[in-house]
């Protein structure tokens, strides 16, 4: 964060120097800019157009399709108004899914954030072993969700050949975590958290290391204990990083898909359904693309709120 702010300040410095240039130079620059503007639009066009064709155009189509009974096969569709939304709101599975997304959010805002912060603080005072621990903690994060999900499914959660099955046979009753209606969602969250927390360690450690040494030393000279140094020196310094991570986690909580789909596909009996899997099943299991679009639109609504907060939090960077 501080690194980027540093870059931003340097950018501003360059701006200030430039605006202090002599008027003749300024007019010369303006004429050059006038002639060259089209060229710069051409340079930025590939990034914007590619994003627009893949994200915006189909996104608008989804917004329209949400009000139709489109089956995703032909182009025929009837305008049915709010019927999709009414049906979804009536569906108990939607409530389950939304509840699971909220539960997911609470789990991820606490457990990985806690572990990430704790491990980052521990690594802060261990400069020599830091690199090795960071690499080890990141290993699950760099592996593909498919790999991670299948290895947990087969060697840990499998009631016959997995560690859970072995424990069950040897007097430690762990049940069947993924097929139990009450535990399935937590069993999936465990895998996703296992894969994710190391990322937060690395982010928080990078933020903690930006704290000015003088501040820490001054606090220690004045007799602050470890907790006070953390609370009054480190925490204020990493606040913006913490906030951005929270917003990121909230956004991802409403989009969570990979591990849920790979481990349970929303089952058993919709117990682990999320908005994403709920939408996906409508589209590719029952070919109700209109309904899938409606759920997608609801998801986007939550995402949009979060992204406003996100844009607002990073506005400092935008004004560079």
């Amino acid at each position, binding site marked *: *964060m501080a*690194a980027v702010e540093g*870059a931003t300040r*340097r*950018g501003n410095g360059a701006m200030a*120097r430039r605006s202090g240039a002599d008027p003749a130079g300024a007019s010369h620059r303006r004429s050059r800019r006038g002639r060259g*503007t089209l060229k710069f639009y051409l340079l*930025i066009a*590939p*990034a*914007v157009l*590619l*994003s627009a064709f*893949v*994200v915006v155009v*189909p*996104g608008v189509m989804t917004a329209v*399709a949400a009000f139709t009974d489109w089956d*995703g096969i032909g182009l025929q569709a009837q305008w049915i108004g709010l019927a999709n939304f009414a049906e979804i709101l009536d569906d108990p599975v939607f409530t389950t899914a939304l509840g699971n997304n909220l539960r997911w959010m609470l789990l991820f805002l606490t457990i990985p954030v806690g572990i990430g912060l704790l*491990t980052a603080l*521990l690594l802060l005072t261990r400069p020599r072993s830091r*690199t090795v621990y960071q690499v*080890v903690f*990141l*290993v699950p994060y*760099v*592996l*593909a*969700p*498919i*790999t991670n999900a*299948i*290895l947990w499914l*087969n*060697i*840990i959660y499998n009631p016959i*050949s997995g560690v859970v*099955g*072995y424990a069950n046979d040897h007097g430690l009753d762990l049940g069947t975590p993924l097929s139990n209606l009450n535990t399935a969602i937590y069993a999936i969250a465990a895998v996703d958290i296992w894969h994710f927390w*190391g*990322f937060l360690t690395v982010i928080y450690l990078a933020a903690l290391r930006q704290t000015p040494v003088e501040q820490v030393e001054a606090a220690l000279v004045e007799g602050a204990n470890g907790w006070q140094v953390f609370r009054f020196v480190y925490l204020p310094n990493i606040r913006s990083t913490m906030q*951005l991570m929270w917003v990121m986690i909230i956004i991802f909580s409403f*989009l969570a*898909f*990979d591990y849920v789909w*790979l481990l349970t596909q929303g089952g058993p009996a919709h117990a682990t359904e999320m*908005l994403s899997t709920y939408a996906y099943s409508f*589209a590719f299991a029952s070919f109700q693309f209109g309904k899938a679009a409606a759920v*997608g*639109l609801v*998801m*986007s609504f939550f*995402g*949009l709120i979060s*992204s406003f907060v*996100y*844009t607002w939090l*990073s506005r400092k960077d*935008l004004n*560079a």
Partner: protein
Amino acid sequence: MRGRMKHVAVIVGHVLLVAFAATALFPLLLVLINSFKTSSEVTANPLAPPTELRLDNFAEAWNYGHFAQGFVNSFILTFTTVVVVLVCSSLAGYVLAGKKIRVWPAVMIYFMVAMTVPIQLFLFPLYYVFAQLQLLGNVVAVGVVIAAINMPLSVFLMRTFFLKIPKSVEEAALVDGANTFQLLRSVMLPVVSPGLITVATIVGLMAWNEFLITSTFLQGGEESSITATLGYLSMNGTFSTDQGVMMAGAVILVAPIMVVFILLQRHFVDGFVSGSVKG
């Protein structure tokens, strides 16, 4: 008294770090030891070390997971994504960093919103368009889609790297009579190359690991279009009773990623940290 407390705290800290490291690696250790065992050995005790280093599981997993084809396709997909992202994001990053166009704040806001749009908002119509254009199963086309999804983050990253270049560098090149292409190619590109490596590393990893888009657009297609991870996923249906083979397949998938990760760990860590600032 205080000294002893401190001593205890240091030991507790070490124990915690080792415990968390063990948690991160334990499932992967299980994968490794079970990849050498027969199915019945795994079922008997998944925690026991292998009695001999048999390689049969690996040969079987390699064939049935279609890894030869899968790795080629994963490589083509990742390469496509990385090339498209690097070209487009560096050009856009240059324009945005230098505020070369009047609408630059609008473009920034556009990318900020695009970055947090859920895939489910555009997946279904995009699938329809892909089906109409007969692009389902086309690895390169899917690579371009994944490039588009990662474009906002990459543009922001490249922009911050261009912001670090002093204005005088660009102005000196223009005074020397360089045109925009020469300026970008010979002056700017070498300076932002660390940025290009960082972006390539994290976007490459995302493309290699991508699940939702890849499985939707490639899985229904021919066997010739599956990626390495999708091949492994298809194996899970047929081989889920032979855990030894499944674990050997996991080793085949994990090993190359681990090698690349350990070799490029600096760039991965840099990429995650700078990427997290903007997404």
